[in-house]
């Protein structure tokens, strides 16, 4: 079975992100799934699409505040497209204290959560459109234009 190429998957992923860099503009980002038109919003804006118009190379984005910590990404452009996104910094200072909750269901199994190193296909989590991620990614991409 052949997977869709990585660039297609990434295009699907990044193409659907809110594309606007909200520089001093306080309005909800729009979902854009089509990468045919460049969205116009705050000026200047970095358009996050994956249509092969970026210069190949590695670019490091700005450090952005994500409330629980900072987010900073480094991207790799290959053949004009985003081929890798690496997190240089991400929120990681939340303590996981272990205090047994006496009101929890006594008959259901409990455990302290632990990081798993298993590789997975997908991740399920609460919706976390991270503006900090988008801004750091945008700042990296704007260097690649």
């Amino acid at each position, binding site marked *: 079975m052949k997977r869709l190429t990585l660039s297609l998957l990434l295009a699907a992923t990044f193409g659907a992100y809110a594309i606007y860099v909200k520089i001093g503009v306080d309005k909800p980002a729009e979902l854009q*799934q089509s990468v045919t038109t460049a969205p116009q919003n705050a000026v200047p804006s970095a358009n996050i699409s994956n249509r092969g118009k970026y210069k190949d190379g590695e670019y490091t984005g700005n450090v952005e505040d994500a409330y629980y910590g900072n987010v900073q990404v480094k991207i790799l452009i290959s053949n004009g497209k985003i081929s890798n996104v690496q997190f240089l910094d991400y929120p990681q200072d939340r303590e996981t204290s272990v205090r047994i909750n006496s009101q929890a269901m006594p008959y259901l199994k409990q455990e302290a959560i632990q990081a798993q190193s298993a590789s997975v296909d997908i991740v*399920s989590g609460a919706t976390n459109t991270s503006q900090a991620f988008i801004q750091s990614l945008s700042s990296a991409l704007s260097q690649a234009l």
Partner: protein
Amino acid sequence: MDMPITVEISDASGKQGDIDVIFDYFKYIEEKFSVYKPNSEITKINNGEIGENERSEDMKTVFSLSEETKQETNGYFDIVANNGKFNPSGLVKGWAIYNTAEILKKRGFKNFYVEAGGDIQVKGKNSKGGCWKAGIRNPFKTQEIVKSVCLRKNEGIATSGTYIRGNHIYNPKDRSKKIDEIVSLTVIGPNVYEADRFATAAFAMGKEGIAFIEKLSGFEGYMIDKNGIATMTTNFEGYL
């Protein structure tokens, strides 16, 4: 409803056009159901521009499914938000993902997943011919996963949570009460529509939410409290 979307098709015949159809559908959903869009149908319903009899078919469907879910959850699922306006996003997300999976099935695909905002519908096998492996995100360190589940029977998985800044979920039965004892509740069910609506309802029950999922036949759950202690339903470990 602004959220990232991922689609992966294992079948060799997947094309850009198939992905485009999925994204077009999500855009359609966004334009209709987003309470953040000034011209969406739901916004116009909320400000009185569109009357109950003038709602579109899809809107009527969502309202009807919402009412049904409210009954089934003893009022813990309620699309009336604390500001008195309708916000059906706790059901629309799963319903929309489910619909896109149906689109892919009609196009003949047998092995894929569609993920939007952390809720997922899987079908068939991953690109290595094995089960689709879904990780449950660590609410305290969102780059980590704390559990990995193996989805073998075209299940849906949805996670409700409040670990994002400014994202508060209130108990619809006592609207002064923010849910803060638990931070994440993941539900695995027969499809993502079911998983999403029950994850939304169960989260509003706070710590009791996992007991609700335990009682639901065909669903398993994994709840994480604010201290990092997880509680799971009896057969959840069958997914590990």
